[in-house]
């Protein structure tokens, strides 16, 4: 995906680039003072740079050329030069350190705000955006900001270096300096040339490298499939083609750099020296001049040209930075927020009565997936939702969990609108057990506690015991401190389910929402899970998407959904007596029993 984005890289128009730049610079505002300080040091650095050749020039012209010099004077100039060097060294260190730290903190600020923004976004965003895409924004794109900020440092250093060395030259000799300025258009031309040729090749090289690495990673991940179908030779050949094409663009990059980067700047510098010597030399044919000035000029010319190589080199990074910035801003600008609450701080869930009155809901604002849904669940009762995929079962849960906002009707909990509860209250009192349980890296304890520090170890053990997860946990090395690797890969899906039960029950919710798993779970764990569900439901208002008979049969109410409508409702016995689609399913099940 990354590589597709790269290959589709459009050139961002200059105006938009400036706009992006302005917006991303706002994140640096809290560190304005640091950046300013770094810039002050940058100026000081350029000044010391200009002072050093000047000291030698004065030493040559006022003393050395005048004949014998006292040791004291010599020592004075050597000492002066050394002291300025010490200042230069100190200034340089602080410039670099302060600037780097300020840019590091800016990146942290961007990351932090991006992460907070992600948590403000609703499930709609996460359902529609691939995980990989979001992760890349939060990590790689923010990391690229560091290079971006470094480009600014290079520009600041370069500009001050060029301006101050020019200024120093003006102070020494205006005519010669004006002559040297004829190199300016030449330099601009070289820079322009380099930018045009290198940016194209650079991006091509980068996208080819990313393609190469994607291919490599894919091959490693899909190795068993490749070997299974004996496609090794073909993939080797394909990879070699990509590899060679990457080499080609890398080689062109090497050529462009060799042609237009430091060698050319070096040549221009030497030609500038030719010009300086010519001007002073021809002048000297007519009248005597101070030779120290020649030294100072050649030295300033060096200061003038030297920063340009780095400046040109960092131009491509500037482009990368703008692209990363614009991606970060897309996430920051996203408005698909978590549904808003009209919070009434006194609103509390005490009994857990749920009412749906004529609720209609659509994901896209056009096609209703829930149409006029009304039902009531009394405190402590269980309602089961039955129906095919797309019938609207999951949408009811999305509405009840406030993952999505509904458009019409009202949802009441204990007689109050679901929109009036503080989010925290809603989350604390409702426990959702997800179909596929996700475990975090850490320990079993961490996964039951899930960052809520108010939950004690004792609570955790009790909760695990309650859902009978304690049996397998006790057998683990380290028990509750046993390591959980990424996504809980070392546990069976049944065990993961039990752990997530424990994390729900440890919070003692008033309302329980079950999205029951359909995954393959081995029989033994299956019975533990069923028992766990029974126990959890006791004394709690429960809304359950049911796939298994045992969860439904004793439900106080069963809602049969079809295309967003409730087509049948009642207890198991009532629905059987009624002879509708529920009964059809039930009969099917009886046939199953007889074979």
């Amino acid at each position, binding site marked *: 995906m990354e590589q*597709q984005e790269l290959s589709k890289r459009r050139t961002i128009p200059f105006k938009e680039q400036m706009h992006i730049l302005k917006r991303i610079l706002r994140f640096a505002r809290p560190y304005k003072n640091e950046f300013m300080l770094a810039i002050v040091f940058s100026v000081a650095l350029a000044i010391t740079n200009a002072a050093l050749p000047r000291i030698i020039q004065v030493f*040559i012209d006022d*003393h*050395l*050329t005048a004949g014998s*010099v006292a040791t004291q004077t010599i020592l004075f100039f*050597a000492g002066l*030069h*050394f002291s300025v*060097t010490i200042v*230069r060294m100190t200034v340089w260190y602080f410039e670099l350190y302060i600037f*780097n730290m300020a840019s*590091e903190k800016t990146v*942290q600020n961007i990351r932090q705000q991006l992460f907070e923004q*992600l*948590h403000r976004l609703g*499930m709609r965003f*996460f359902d529609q955006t691939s*995980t990989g895409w979001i*992760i890349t924004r*939060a990590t790689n794109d923010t990391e690229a900001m560091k290079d971006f900020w470094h480009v600014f440092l290079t520009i600041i250093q370069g500009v001050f270096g060029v301006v101050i060395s020019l200024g120093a030259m003006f102070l020494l000799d205006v005519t010669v300096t004006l002559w040297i300025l004829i190199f300016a258009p030449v330099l601009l031309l070289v820079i322009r040339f380099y930018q045009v040729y290198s940016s194209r090749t650079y991006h091509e090289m980068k996208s080819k490298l990313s393609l190469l*690495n994607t291919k490599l990673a*894919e091959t*490693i991940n899909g*190795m*068993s499939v*490749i*070997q299974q*179908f*004996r*496609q*090794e030779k073909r993939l*080797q050949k394909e990879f*070699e083609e990509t*590899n060679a094409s990457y080499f080609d663009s*890398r*080689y062109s990059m090497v050529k462009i*750099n*060799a*042609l237009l980067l*430091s*060698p*050319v700047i*070096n*040549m221009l510098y030497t030609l500038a020296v030719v010009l300086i010597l010519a001007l002073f*030399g*021809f002048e000297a*044919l007519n009248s005597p001049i101070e*030779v120290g000035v020649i030294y100072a000029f050649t030295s300033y010319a060096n200061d003038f040209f030297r920063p340009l190589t780095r400046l040109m080199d960092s131009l491509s990074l500037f482009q990368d930075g703008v692209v990363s910035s614009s991606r970060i801003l897309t996430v920051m600008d996203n408005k698909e927020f978590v549904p808003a609450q009209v919070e009434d701080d006194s609103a509390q869930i005490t009994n857990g009565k749920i009412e749906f009155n004529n609720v209609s809901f659509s994901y896209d604002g056009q096609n209703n997936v829930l149409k006029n849904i009304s039902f009531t669940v009394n405190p402590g009762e269980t309602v089961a939702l039955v129906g*095919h995929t797309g019938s609207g079962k999951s949408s009811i849960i999305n509405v009840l969990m406030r*993952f999505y906002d509904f458009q019409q009707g009202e949802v009441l909990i204990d007689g109050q609108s679901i929109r009036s509860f503080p989010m925290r209250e809603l989350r604390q009192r409702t*426990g959702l057990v997800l179909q596929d349980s*996700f475990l975090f*890296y850490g320990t079993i304890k961490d996964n039951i506690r899930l*960052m809520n520090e108010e939950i004690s170890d004792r609570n955790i053990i009790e909760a695990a015991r309650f859902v009978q997860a304690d049996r397998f946990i006790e057998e683990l090395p380290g028990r509750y401190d046993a390591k959980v690797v*990424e996504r809980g890969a070392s546990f069976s899906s049944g065990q993961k389910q039990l752990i997530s039960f424990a994390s729900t029950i440890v919070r003692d919710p008033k309302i329980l929402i079950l999205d029951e798993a359909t995954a*393959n779970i081995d029989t033994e764990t299956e019975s533990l899970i069923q028992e766990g569900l029974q126990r959890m439901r006791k004394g709690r208002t429960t809304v359950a998407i049911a796939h298994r008979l045992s969860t439904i049969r004793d439900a106080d109410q069963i809602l049969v959904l079809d295309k967003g409508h409730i087509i049948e409702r009642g207890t198991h016995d009532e629905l059987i007596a009624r002879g509708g689609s529920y009964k059809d399913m039930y009969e*099917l099940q009886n046939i*199953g*029993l007889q074979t």
Partner: protein
Amino acid sequence: MGIFKRLSWFFRKEKRSYLTGIAALIIVAVLQLIPPRIIGIVVDEIQMGIITTESLVMWLAILASTAVGQYILRYSWRVRIWGNAAKLEQIVRKQLFDHFTNMDNQFFQKYRTGDLMAHATNDLRGLRMVAGGGILTMADAISVGLTTLLAMIFIVDWRLTLLAIIPLPLLALTSRVLGKKLHLRFRDAQAAFSHLNDKVQESIQGIKVIKTFGQETEDIEQFSRQTDNVVVKNKAVYKVDSLFDPAITFIMGISYFLTIFIGGTLISAEEISVGDFVTFINYIGMLVWPMFAIGRLFNIIERGSASYDRIESLLREETSIAERQGAIDRPVSGNLTFDLSNFSYPDEEGPTLSDIRFTLEAGGTLGLVGKTGAGKTTILKLLLREYDDYKGSIRYGGFDIRDYTLDALLKHVGYVPQDNYLFSDTIRENIRFADPTLDQQAVEAAAKLADIHDDILGLPNGYDTEVGERGVSLSGGQKQRISIARAILINPELMILDDSLSAVDAKTEESILSGLKDLRQGQTTIIAAHRISSVMHAEEIIVVDNGEIIERGTHQQLLQKAGWYKEMYEQQQLERAMEGGES
């Protein structure tokens, strides 16, 4: 320096361009001496008042031609040396890739994808640095350093030279010490960044859980702790990194101090001229880079050689699956006989499989059922020759499968794995993975049999839809069916479905199985499944538990036995009725 010797195969191969490059480098080093000298001479001629138009024009002409000459030679060595470095990277990358494709399962269990990727990116970069920067630094440091030093001694003054260069070895030392320190701190910073990545990854993947429990604030706090840590680790980096330029300045400052003091004294005593002094100051400046580079060279070599060690140790790994000399290359056919007394995974105690014996007649169907982890997939892995080290034999058409070439066996087995891996390519390419030359018609025929054709047409770009593209999400069932189409396409002698229908609904399962039955008249099939309905029509069904066969027979026979099979069957019938055909 050992790394240069170990890479000598490459240097020898590119001998010509390396020699030309280094020759150009040395000439540049000599040419570099000219400008400061000419500046010095002109300064002297002006100062002594002996300058003439002819001499000035001559010096300027020499200087200008040096500028052009340097440009051409610099271009030449850069292209050669950096070009060669890129070439070395390309060659070793190919070696690694080819090697990976020949490795067995154990290799990929030992090294995780991330590790292998790190070797193929960072270590290759380390190697490139040796072949480019390393060679360059060594040649450049030696040639520039030596010529400049000689020029200082012979053109200017040997006493001044000896005293002025006293501080310079400090440069080499500084760059070596700081470089080493920086490298360590940088590694810590990288680790902190990678922890941050893991954190983001988990938060995004587990976003629903976090929202469910309302732990957003806590999650943000955890995240800030990670970003704080990144800042702390980078602070340590900057403390050292910002030292480089100032340290050079300082050491050079001492050198300049000595130069001004001693040079001034010598001029005063009329031992050297002002022009000599100017030349000398410029020469001193030219020594900064070579001295500093020598220190850097040690670091480049150290890292490069560690990188090459890691790459070589990967390349030395051997696969346990090898073809025998004179192996049979006639495609497998006939009866498949398992006569396995014992198998355990390497590094694992106790047998994973024991006494697995069955014969699957050509054209027949075998069902394998059992709990997760019972050993079904292991049986199939042995058949696919992922492991060769077991007691007993597996025979196909009367010959041990280990006596066939891999092509003779694997090219004729269509395996549909549990975890169906699709490549980020178009759906079409994924289906015709085993033979990209097949046409659309063949692809569609396979897709129809796997009951995925209509689903594909419903995707934004049909068969051209890229897997993993933004906005395209294939369900588990759809992925499974694409994998099935991929296996059907090669019309294999033996087709293996390893729990590959678990995510499709009952109706689809039935239609796929009956389609396969029609298509594969007289061809052999093995179906491993958790769902009994997938295997109930098989000629023989084997129930595996704990690596052993606990029940076997036809569907009817097994139901009469009233064992695990019957219990499972009934339970699943119930569930299925409840779901009402839902997936």
